[in-house]
């Protein structure tokens, strides 16, 4: 299998990597240090590896890295940091929506994808938006509350990222 050099813009930063075709976007992101992107089921069922690819929510375990050549990727760590968290990340922390934390980066990216197109979602719309993200700890109540709280904070004029 021949390697090919691809260009990815990850969290605003241009990266070039050489790799064979049988490497997923999930693998290359984690190998480059973006370990906020979690390796979960590797079947597209759990959403732990969800990132935005050109603004659209995708499971990075089901995207071949070559298919992302020349495209923009946003992961949860590109949204904000411990020092400068994004309102979505603050809302998840403040509402107790994080228990083990494994689903959290994917949940946050699903929230970002929702609020980008629907800044004032109903509870039904929130549940639909995170329906591809599994949490095995909390039972979702706090996560749904976190998304609603994030929408309020962004509407209230914080940094909307």
């Amino acid at each position, binding site marked *: *299998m021949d390697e090919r050099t691809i260009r990815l813009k990850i969290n605003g930063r241009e990266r070039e990597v050489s790799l064979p075709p*049988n*490497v997923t976007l999930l693998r290359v992101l984690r190998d480059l240090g973006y370990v906020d992107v979690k390796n979960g089921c590797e079947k597209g069922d759990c959403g732990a590896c969800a990132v935005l690819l050109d603004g659209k929510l995708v*499971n990075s375990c089901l*995207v071949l890295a070559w*298919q992302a050549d020349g495209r923009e990727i946003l992961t949860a760590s590109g949204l904000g940091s411990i020092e400068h968290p994004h309102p979505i990340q603050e809302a998840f922390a403040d509402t107790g929506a994080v228990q083990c934390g494994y689903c959290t980066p994917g949940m946050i990216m699903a929230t970002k994808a929702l609020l980008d197109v629907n800044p004032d979602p109903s509870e039904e719309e929130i549940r*639909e938006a995170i*329906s*591809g*993200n599994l949490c095995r700890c909390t039972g979702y109540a706090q996560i749904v509350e976190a998304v609603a709280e994030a929408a309020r904070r962004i509407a209230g004029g914080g940094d909307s990222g």
Partner: protein
Amino acid sequence: MTLPKFELHRPESLDEALDILASSPGAVPIAGGTALIVDMRGRRLSPPVLVDIGLIDRLSGVRIEGGEVVIGAATTIAEIKESDLIAQHSPLLSEACGLFASPSVRNRATIGGNIAYASPAADTAPPLLALDASVELASASGRRTVPIDRFFLGVRRTERRDDELITAIRFPIPAEGTEGRFRKLGLRRADAISVVSAAVSIGPPADGGRRVRIALGAVAPTPIRARRAEEALSAGPIDEGAILAAAEAAASEASPVSDLRGSDWYRREAIRALVRRLLRPVVEGRSDG
């Protein structure tokens, strides 16, 4: 787990893609990869060559062409769900795409892939059967169009030859006054494989009877049309008696299996209920009901 080794081509034109499919034995087209990558990771499939059709512009998008709705094979399920043209002409397909897997899968999965994979539970199949859709196939040696009710041959087996690519799905714009609906039953409300799915499309009354289509998913080796159920509704008035007869006929036409999602008995009961529930609102508020 790593993926098996393969060669990956990313052609930018349809002709180039068809040449690769013709000259590479065992080559398989890939679009969203939401089914194929999972099967490759599980070692159920290991094609030596993949042809990514995602860079071929003309394979995606929804358009109207000569009285037909044409959906490019690489159009994503999310794009179909959001399409105004689809909502206007075939709301049952919009509904099915809204219930398809999860948002992140819908952003990658394509209608061509869903049909090519030929799962008995493919969520776009019952609506497409109810819409009298056809599958457009292209190869280096020619083009052909296959009615979708002859496209599925068995579980994961289709009319498509290895050197052919699905380029589009097309269906006639339904007559004014046609009503269509889709329902699926899964083990949870989202991100679930259908236990039973059903689509109905009921045309307005016309001389010689109305056009009726009832299609079922996950109850036979392929998605099927319930033709006896259709006949039960195509002549006389669509009243409660006709609806019950259609539901009964649909259940008898299915050949469901028992698996971890449901028993054959349960699936037949579910067909009866789904068909009744789909038909009742279609006739309510209609003068011919």
